[in-house]
Structures are given as C-alpha cells and as structure tokens.
C-alpha cells in the first residue's frame, strides 16, 4: 500500500512550560493541527509533496501564533522582512525569497521561483516585483502586525538586542 507522511514545525526556542498558558497551548495545538490537515488533504488525494508542504506552510503563515506571514516578528524599523524556501526532492528544483515585504504568503512566492526555473533565490524589491508579476496577493504591513509581536519588539528595542521568536526572556546579543 502506498504511504505518505508529513511533519511540520512552528518554531523552536527557550519558552518554558510554565510560560505557556493552557489557552495558548490549545490555540497552538489547533494551529498545528490545521496545518497538518492542509498538507494531509493534498497527500491523501495523491497530490505531490511540494504542494503538500506549501499548503501546510501557508496555513502556518496565515496563523498569527507563529513567526511567519501574519504574526511575524518586527525588524528594527518596525516593518516586516520575510524569508522562505521550498525544495523538491525528486528534481532538486528549489525556490527561495529573502528580505521580501508585503507578500502575504512568502512560501507561495518561493514556489513560484521554483516553478519559474530561471532562479533559485530572489530578494528585496525584486522579489516583490516578481510576486506582482506572478499575481500573488500583496498586503499592507498592518496585516502582519499582532499585539504580542509589538510587545516583543518594544522590549527588544529597549535592549538593542535581537530575540528569537519563541523566547520568554532570553535575548541574543
């Protein structure tokens, strides 16, 4: 019998059990399950692995609990510079975007780069132009902003240090 499998992550960090409320744990669990279901739906119907990982990651990008797409962390200027990549194990084709702004789903843009085939990696304004050409959805910075990330950003700005997204109090110099 043909089999399939899918795994996802929503980030790693030094957050400790006592720092996650039962409500937040429940919300995270739901967000993770929704993402696995999105990928599993593709695989169950004989869809390919690239489509499955793209749909699972889009689900996570659209969930404000995780640091990607909506709910992404803020950079020093208070805006959102996003990165994503995707790779096909069958053909070795890959697509990646870095430092890209206002693209709602960066992983979908990375897949467009993979499908286009001329490049592996695009960054910055050029990557955004490519997104426009491919008809991907662009959104204002406000779309990505959440109260929790705003608070994290203000705390990090005070110390002038960078912070991994899932960190309670830990900061990296």
């Amino acid at each position, binding site marked *: 019998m043909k089999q399939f499998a899918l795994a996802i992550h929503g980030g790693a960090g030094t957050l400790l059990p006592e720092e996650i409320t039962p409500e937040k744990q429940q919300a995270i669990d739901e967000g993770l399950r929704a993402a696995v279901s999105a990928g599993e739906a593709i695989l169950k119907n004989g869809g390919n692995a690239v489509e499955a990982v793209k749909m699972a990651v889009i689900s996570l990008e659209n969930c404000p609990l995780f640091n990607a797409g909506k709910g992404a962390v803020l*950079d020093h200027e208070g805006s959102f510079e996003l990165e994503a990549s995707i790779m096909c194990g069958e053909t070795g084709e890959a697509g990646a975007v870095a430092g890209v702004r206002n693209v709602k789903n960066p992983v979908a843009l990375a897949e467009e780069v993979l499908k286009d085939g001329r490049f592996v990696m695009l960054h*910055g304004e050029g990557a955004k132009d490519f997104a426009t050409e491919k008809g991907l959805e662009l959104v204002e910075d406000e779309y990505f902003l959440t109260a929790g990330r705003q608070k994290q950003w203000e705390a990090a700005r005070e110390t002038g240090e960078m912070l991994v*997204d899932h960190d309670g109090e830990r900061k990296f110099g």
Partner: protein
Amino acid sequence: TVGAVALDMDGNLAAATSTGGLVNKQYSRLGDSAVIGAGTYADNDTCAISCTGYGEYFLRNVVAFDIAARMDYGAKSLEKSAQEVVMKKLVERGGEGGIIGLDGEGNIALVFNSAGMYRAWVKSGGEIQTAIFE
C-alpha cells in the same frame, strides 16, 4: 519560523520553511530559512529537512545538508544523522534550535536542543499528533 516536510504516495520528498526572522533584526539581516542546504533541503535519495532556531548557527553549519550528507556518505539513518548534528555538533558550537526530517521510508525525525519545538506530524492511516516540549 515555520516549516514542513512531506513524502507523497509516489515516494517523492519535499521541504519548505518560512519566517519573519529575529525580533528587532537590523541591516536586513537574513537567517537560514531562505537558504537551501542550511534551513531547507530535500533529496529523494536521503531526506527532507526544515530547520528552526537561531539562524546564524544553521547557516555556518549548513545543518540541513549536513544531515542529508551523513545519510548519503555515512549510510546513517535519518534519526542518527539528525541527533549527531543537532544534539552534538550544534550544541558544541552554541547553536540552539531544531529540525523536522523525513526519509523515503516515511521515518520522521523531530530533533531539537532547545527547551521546546512546536511540532505536529501524521502518517497515512494514522492520527495527527502534536507536541511542544519533550
């Protein structure tokens, strides 16, 4: 950071990663998530990997490809290769974070040296499972 690895019914693997990076990052700093071989890698002959953690260490140590290379050149399992890289080499070099991995037989690796990693997985015919801490 978020990511996914998948094995489809034709036996093909794929990996994807997406992130907003580090809070308060400056100078348009980039991490490993957009770098093939560091934060994301997929090769039907070895594995699909997506990484999360403090990106600078995953870049310097080319983590995703290193795991695949140990399977390819060292004939090690996905789990053993991931444990060597994430729990030994990365820790020795100060790197914090984790990986999700999948091989062509459907073996899943969920390995992290940080306090926790948000993760979930499913296999054909099985139930979805989720976890945050060990």
